[in-house]
């Protein structure tokens, strides 16, 4: 159910983003989606690729600080209130949403968001109880290829 996201530590300076992106390009690893969080001196690049283990190894080998984290790909209805519905399910559960970003795939009136919860396992249980669709990587990549 969980999806591995790679996070990279980058200094906030010209060219910092190019290095990992070029490395992935050279290894023909496609970035499915990404998000960047930035502070004044540094930032975090978060990205999703198909073969996260190979990408992690490659980036580390080239001297980058990389961390693999579990995130959830959640199906969200593409109409007003779709996201509110998902968030309502975790309200009052004590689960904290650290951050989220979109996954560029929209089919049959449904889109996908990637959620990073402080407790992903607990979140899966809560969401499934509310009949919210959490998609594993196999399913997500299958839909992407369809």
């Amino acid at each position, binding site marked *: 159910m969980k999806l591995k996201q790679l996070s990279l*530590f980058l200094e906030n300076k010209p060219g910092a983003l190019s290095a990992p992106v070029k490395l992935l390009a050279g290894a023909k690893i496609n970035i499915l989606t990404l998000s960047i969080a930035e502070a004044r001196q540094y930032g975090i690049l978060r990205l999703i690729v198909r073969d996260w283990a190979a990408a992690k190894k490659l980036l580390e080998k080239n001297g980058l*600080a*990389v961390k693999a984290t579990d995130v959830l790909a959640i199906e969200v209805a593409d109409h007003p209130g779709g996201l509110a519905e998902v968030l309502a399910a975790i309200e009052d559960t004590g689960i904290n949403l650290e951050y989220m970003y979109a996954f560029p795939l929209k089919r049959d009136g449904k889109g996908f968001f990637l959620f990073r919860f402080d407790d992903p396992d607990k979140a899966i249980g809560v969401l499934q109880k509310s009949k919210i669709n959490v998609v594993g990587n196999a399913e997500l990549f299958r839909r992407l290829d369809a």
Partner: protein
Amino acid sequence: MSKHTIQKLAPFDPISAPDFLPPSQLRDLQLERLRGMVAQAFNNVTLFRRRMSDRGMEPGDVKSLDDITRLPFCDKTDLRDSYPFGLFARPMSEIVRLHASTGTTGKPIVVAYTQQDIDVWTNVMCRSFAACGLHRGDIIQNAYGYGLFTGGLGAHYGGEALGATVIPISGGNTQRQIMVLKDFNVTAICCTPSYFLHIIDQAAELGVNLKELPLRAGVFGAEPWTESMRQHIQRDSGIKAYDIYGLSEIIGPGVAMECPCQAGPHIFEDFFYPEVIDSATGKPCPDGVEGELVLTTLSKHAMPMIRYRTRDITALTSEPCGCGRTLRRIKRISRRSDDMIIIRGVNVYPSQIETALLKVEGAQPHYQIILTREKGLDEMEVQVEVTGDVFSDTMGGLEQLQARLTKSIETTTGLRPRVRLIQPHSIQRSEGKAKRVIDQRKM
């Protein structure tokens, strides 16, 4: 048997015999050698003759070891002022080797050796290797620089005298160092501790697991380091890290070396007489009290040194060591009186920053201290490399890391630094001595 099995009582090794002399015999030997050496220095070196005469002293006045405290000091300035050959006590025809310092601060200093001096140096380096359990059959990768720097050749001769196999790889080319470590079944390595950290990093990146290699000992010296750094090295590489101490002015590496107890280097007192003094007053410090190390060579012919002020801060201990050596020990040198930095009037040593950083879980000892002055106020920025171990995927996590590092440094030094997190490998790796402080203050 694990590669680290240490026998409580080492089997008798004739190489190490002088390390176990009964103290009274050792003192007699020291006095005899001291008297001979002072006479030579007085007769052959203008500086020593003038300094002693100024105090109304002549060689015959040295009647006991305690009389050494009446002799004048000398220091690095004297070596610079007498550049290049002014302190030689022997004619060039008897001198078989010259070395020189790299001259990081001003003019280099030149040191000279007669054949006898080389033999003494070889002897103490050989005993250094034996002290940490190396012997014939060991393969020593000598990554100290060969050349004018004393590290390379000193370790080289000592290793060969031990009967070990020496690989004179010298410093640099880390990928090749790792290939040789692995392919040649190396069992011991000599280099600076900071360079070995770099080797650990690179080995991980190359997918070489140092813990699986026959490598079991590191003979580390030539720069100040800390106990936390030793623990770090031992944990990440699976080897035992031994502290060797020396300086070119006295002979090179091999003035003092640790035994398997790893409780501070034993001074080879049959050749070097140690004192620890209060830097400000010049008065001797009692056993266990920190001060500046002062060394006197007891049988150096080409260039004797009387009460040389090393600027290295340590404490002397005569407490018996578990290994049975009667040689006194010094505390690991983690700072020098001249690498002290003064920030807003507070004295800070780079080693304190290192210790503070390593207290934070997962932090690596890759750091640099940048000093600036803004509107007349000193600012200390500590740049710390972020690694996969400490890195968090959330901003909150990184802010917490920054706060923990800041707090730890503040607790240790009393100064609040600006901690800047930087990408791995952004700090230039040294292949010799690490550059820890960049002082950009305009005084």
